[in-house]
């Protein structure tokens, strides 16, 4: 071929390489974040432990010889007994503690998941709308958040739960409906800077309506902070649920949650220590791991914020 210079040869070579797919690949932001997360040993171990806890809580009950509300009349208030299959002992009613702890963990996890979804959904939409529209809308919406912050939150949950009955669904929604405030603030702050970016201007020039812009263009860009904050919300929700259950306002018998188990275990811990230690151990492990995961995600997704 005539006219091929040295430069052309290099370019052709590179084009061929690209075609054979062995060109040096760029790394996306997600890949970068994943690499940083994997390098964080505490976070990785925590993820493994949380996955294990979730699996055991949901699959374990099928392998435990006793049901969580089944009474074994021959073993009341007995310490762990491997022959009979009471691996964590039994409570005052002769119910197997292992089965009850598994059920309680399940319940706490479900509450955490549902309440987190509720709080993320409300917080993201609210914050994005307030931030995007700005001006008077923003001022009014954020004033409302300020007012809700001023309400003593735990009193508020107690009032909600007491007044509207002890329905587990309501418990989920009630806790979630209160934890969205900080999320809304964070999302609003991010939206304020995002809406000045060129891609939003391009979308607007292309004729997209405000809600299309919010849902299609702004919300996807909020993933990082939302994921981080949601992970940090989960332990708070688990603590809130356990606390309500501890006061006797949460999950009702024969179902149980980690908080309920602790509240029954605490007064008798002197004579029946296994009734406190088993649920307390699971709760603390879960909270510790979730906190490490949240911190790990924050370091991975937002390295400048360390």
């Amino acid at each position, binding site marked *: 071929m005539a006219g091929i210079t040295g430069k052309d040869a290099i370019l052709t070579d590179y084009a061929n390489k690209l075609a054979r797919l062995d060109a040096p690949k760029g790394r996306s932001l997600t890949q970068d974040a994943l690499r940083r997360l994997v390098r964080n040993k505490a976070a990785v171990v925590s993820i493994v432990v949380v996955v294990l806890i979730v699996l055991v809580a949901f699959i374990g009950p099928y392998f435990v010889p006793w049901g969580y509300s089944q009474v074994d009349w021959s073993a009341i208030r007995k310490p762990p007994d491997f022959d009979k299959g009471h691996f964590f002992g039994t409570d005052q009613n002769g119910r197997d503690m292992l089965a009850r702890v598994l059920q309680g963990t399940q319940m706490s996890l479900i509450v955490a998941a549902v309440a987190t979804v509720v709080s993320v959904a409300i917080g993201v939409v609210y914050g994005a709308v307030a931030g995007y529209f700005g001006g008077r809308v923003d001022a009014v919406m954020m004033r409302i958040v300020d007012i809700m912050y001023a309400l003593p939150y*735990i009193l508020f949950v107690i009032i909600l739960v007491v*007044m509207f009955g002890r329905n587990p669904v309501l418990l989920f929604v009630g806790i979630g409906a209160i934890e969205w405030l900080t999320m809304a603030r964070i999302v609003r702050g991010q939206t304020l800077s995002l809406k000045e970016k060129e891609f939003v201007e391009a979308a607007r020039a292309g004729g997209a309506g405000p809600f299309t812009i919010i849902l299609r263009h702004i919300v996807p860009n909020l993933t990082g902070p939302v994921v981080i904050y949601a992970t940090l919300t989960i332990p708070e929700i688990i603590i809130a649920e356990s606390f309500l259950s501890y006061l006797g306002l949460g999950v009702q018998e024969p179902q149980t949650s980690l908080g309920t188990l602790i509240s029954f275990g605490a007064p008798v811990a002197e004579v029946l220590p296994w009734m406190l230690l088993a649920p307390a151990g699971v709760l*603390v492990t879960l909270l510790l791991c979730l906190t490490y995961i949240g911190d790990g995600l924050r370091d991975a997704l937002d390295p400048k914020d360390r």
Partner: protein
Amino acid sequence: MLAYAFRRVLSAIPIALIAVTVCFFILRLAPGGPFDGERALPPNVLANLRAHYNLDQPLVTQYFIYVWRLLHGDLGPSMVIEGFSVSRLIAIGFPFTLTLALTAFVIATAVGLLAGMIAAVNQNKWPDYVLVLGVMVGVIIPNFLMAALLQLWFGVYLKWFPAGGWVNGSWMHLVLPVTVLAWPHAGRISRLMRGSMIEVLGTNYVRTARSKGLGERLVLARHAIKPALIPVVSYLGPGLSYLLTGSLAVEQIFGLPGIGKYFVTAALNRDYGIVLGTTILYMFIILALNLIVDLVYAWLDPKVRYR
């Protein structure tokens, strides 16, 4: 500065009013009432009771009666405990709650600041690791579990402190509740202090102070501590309101005679007067604390005033 303070105070008033309104209607819209006992009351008695507490009037009228009374500083009567007003209940319970929360606040802030400073100066050495561990324990373990564990260990096994209850004037009874309350707060404070202190120790003016030959102690005392305190100050307000609400739970667990004991019972009995009165009291305290923090901040940082 004065204009800013005036504006902030003015803007807090509508917030307080709206919050009172929200509390009032949420409480009233819920099903059930204070007189739904185990045994149904005779209809004429019930009607008289309802008339006595204005419950027979339209909700909006009740609301205006309540706000009118509130503006006169009257929180109304308790609807379940005979001849007992909410103000009297607060007068009995609140001083105790306040003492508990303030003791915990002072101790926790002092310990937290000191621990944060020590950890920052000894970054990545053993005092730092000990602190991180202590903070983790305090922040992770929920207060009711911490209370149960401390009661069991120090109250039952070692018998150092009473595990619960209250004898007038005995500080021994306060040790465990205050520890439970103070630990997480101290943890958060020390984490903030450590972070900001490390940042300050890396700044140019600290390097200048060191390079002109100041001893390490003087560098810390004269140049590093003050700027490092700023982020901590902003947490003190929310921290105190957190301790005040947290003390409700701790009182319940340790059987202490503060407001917390009455609040949960009152909510269960739908004693509108007490629940609303306590909630409003807390709300005003939190609003006031936020206001004070804002003002202190404006005083520290003039940029805030001209927004």
